[in-house]
């Protein structure tokens, strides 16, 4: 077995076997999935029916509170004082008091409860009341709800990209933004997380003094590259496990709780209901659904229009290229210091282009083909992050190709520089190193 693969193997296995790796691998998907699962799960859990007594002095609203499987509305004794006393006696969840309004239309209500009243109850009541009040106001002004419905307009702008040969393609700016931003942030974190691991690994070898034993058997360059590649594999493993585990969790949950899921989605529609069309709640829903369907149809077109082969291919390329470029620099920094505390002065030039890229990302996403976007996606230190933002919007192939070639050269260059610093640095103990010193190391003969 060749030495570099031995080194890769060791770097990989020692990290993958670590408890922290295993915990993080399982905790990550749990966290990600739980963002989505927990609210649904919790809402399906609360089977307890909340009984809310209503003291409606206006007499307008009570009938409208239909309740659902979790909420039940009952008429309260028409006297506030007694009703409040009964709240405790009867064990009701809350007492809704809607006082007689000063003007024609009421718009306030008070919800008395023993505990802090839950948000879904509040928003349910609010939604119903809003619908009813709006209906009253419409009637007051003599507006026919049908007319209003016909006035309400949804405007969609379909963006269609036309390429030089006249082919048309539906696109969605939102989807492009999301895909671009997501992959950029992923690359950013991957570089930082695993680049820092390379650095820590080098420092560990230096401080534990294993380094001199190892490099009497292998070339410093082999050791450095073995470490960088081994940790890259660790990163890929973790990433793939996250994707697979998160997907399994989410789909598994979706399958197991199909019914609850539907109920949840329905309740969300009611809560989010605009309430402008009080008398035709069903029709409104249908109209909304139709609008949504149209929307979804458009989104699907746009999703299909994105060239996934290009996106996935370039994601993997910039993911790996960016990591390799920076990991070599991280290794050089690790070799130049005796402890992690000393790394700060050398970390600056590495972190600045990375952080700058992620800050500029927000600007570039609004103008993905401007000059800043162009140049930053060519410069190897920023291109992995910036190019990934641009690609979902569509970038000419020659630009991707140029940027890719520049990144490869950038990687070769940083690795060459890093290797020179590394092979001198790893044998240097207890010496305070500065940039001038590093510069000299570049010219030492091997």
């Amino acid at each position, binding site marked *: *077995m060749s*030495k570099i693969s*031995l*080194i890769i193997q*060791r770097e990989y296995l*020692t990290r993958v076997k*670590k408890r922290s790796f295993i915990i993080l691998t399982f905790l990550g998907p749990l966290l990600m999935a739980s963002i989505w699962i927990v609210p649904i799960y919790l809402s399906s859990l609360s089977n307890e029916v909340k009984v809310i007594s209503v003291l409606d002095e206006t007499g307008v609203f009570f009938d409208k509170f239909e309740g659902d499987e979790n909420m039940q509305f009952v008429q309260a004794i028409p006297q506030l004082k007694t009703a409040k006393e009964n709240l405790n006696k009867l064990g009701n969840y809350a007492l809704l008091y809607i006082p007689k309004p000063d003007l024609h239309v009421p718009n306030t209500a008070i919800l008395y409860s023993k505990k802090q009243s839950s948000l879904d109850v509040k928003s349910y009541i609010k939604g119903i009341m809003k619908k009813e009040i709006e209906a009253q106001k419409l009637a007051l002004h003599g507006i026919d709800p049908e007319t209003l419905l016909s006035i309400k307009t949804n405007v969609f702008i379909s963006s269609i990209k036309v390429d030089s040969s006249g082919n048309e393609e539906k696109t969605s700016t939102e989807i492009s933004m999301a895909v671009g931003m997501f992959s950029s942030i992923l690359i950013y974190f991957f570089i930082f997380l695993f680049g820092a691991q390379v650095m820590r690994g080098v420092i*560990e*070898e230096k401080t*534990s*003094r*294993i*380094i*001199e*034993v*190892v*490099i*009497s*058997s*292998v070339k410093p360059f082999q050791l450095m590259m073995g470490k960088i590649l081994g940790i890259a594999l660790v990163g890929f493993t973790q990433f793939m496990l996250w994707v697979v585990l998160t997907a399994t969790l989410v789909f598994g949950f979706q399958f197991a709780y199909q019914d609850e899921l539907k109920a949840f989605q329905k309740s969300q529609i009611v809560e989010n209901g605009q309430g402008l069309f009080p008398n035709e709640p069903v029709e409104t829903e249908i109209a909304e659904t139709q609008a949504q369907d149209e929307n979804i149809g458009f989104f699907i077109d746009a999703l299909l229009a994105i060239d996934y082969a290009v996106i996935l291919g370039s994601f993997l390329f910039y993911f790996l290229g960016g990591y390799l470029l920076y990991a070599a620099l991280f290794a050089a920094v690790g070799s130049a210091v005796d402890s992690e505390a000393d790394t700060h002065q050398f970390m600056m030039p590495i972190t600045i282009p990375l952080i700058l890229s992620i800050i500029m990302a927000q600007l570039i996403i609004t103008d993905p083909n401007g000059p800043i976007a162009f140049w930053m996606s060519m410069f190897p230190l920023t291109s992995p992050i910036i190019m990934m933002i641009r690609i979902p919007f569509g970038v000419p192939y020659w630009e991707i190709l140029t940027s890719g070639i520049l990144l490869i050269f950038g990687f070769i260059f940083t690795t060459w520089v890093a290797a020179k610093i590394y092979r001198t640095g790893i*044998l240097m*103990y207890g010496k305070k190193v500065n940039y001038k010193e590093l510069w*000299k190391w570049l010219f*030492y*003969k*091997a």
Partner: protein
Amino acid sequence: MLFEAKNIVKRYAGHTALDGVSISIPEQSIFGLLGPNGAGKTTLIRIINQIIGPDEGELFFDGRNIQTSDIYQIGYLPEERGLYKKMKVGEQAIYLAQLKGLSRADAIRELKVWFEKFDIGSWWNKKVEELSKGMQQKIQFIITIIHKPKLLIFDEPFSGFDPINVQLLKKEILNFKNQGASIIFSTHNMASVEEICDHISLIDQAKTILEGEVSSIKNKFKANIYEVEWLGQLDQMKVKLPSYLSILDNGNSNGSNKTKFQIGEGSKPNDLMKFLMDDFDVLGLKEILPSMDEIFIQSVNATSK
């Protein structure tokens, strides 16, 4: 010669670490590489290990120019030595043995033999950080020799060992020599140099200032000093002392004197005997050769003047 370095020069920004140093290591011998701190020993050892390259000079291994693959014939125990703390002992030893060119199966077999020999078989699955420094040193020693190299390089091998383990190591080092290996031994411990080294080279300020066989160097540095055990009064003897003799040291035990005489230029030990036998009872006489310690200090002081 198993290994030769000729006129090695290594410069760093601001100083020269080695300035035309040559060493020759015969087969089946123990070679002491001596010198004060900062003399350039570690740089030379790193060059022999091909960790760094010389700016000038040539290196020969087994009579031909040294090659990258020759590192499989060299075992190196650095002075600043360590192990991966979080790795298990056995796993780590296998890894390092594989880096030295052994197959996994060979590595495991050889390691088991040595672990048994050093009575540390029970540590195989322990993490390095659980072991004491002395225990780690034993493992480092095993890793250094596991691939049966022709040339062994030990940089301060005994530091951190208790006397029992030092004895164990010395025995193993001599064993390797008897089996045909050559050993470079870099140390400040002159007692061990005298005990086990055949040849030495003394480096100071980037240059070789003394080299050769230990016995001939000692002869070269001898200063005609003899220790005589005799009976009689010291004062009485001092009165009669001829000019070509001087007394360096005197001790008295169980009624007999042990006196160190230095014989002046042009006179012989026989003159000393004649002088003493005339008036006193001589019980014994032996020549005192300088210790390596004294030779070291004397040589280094001479160059720094």
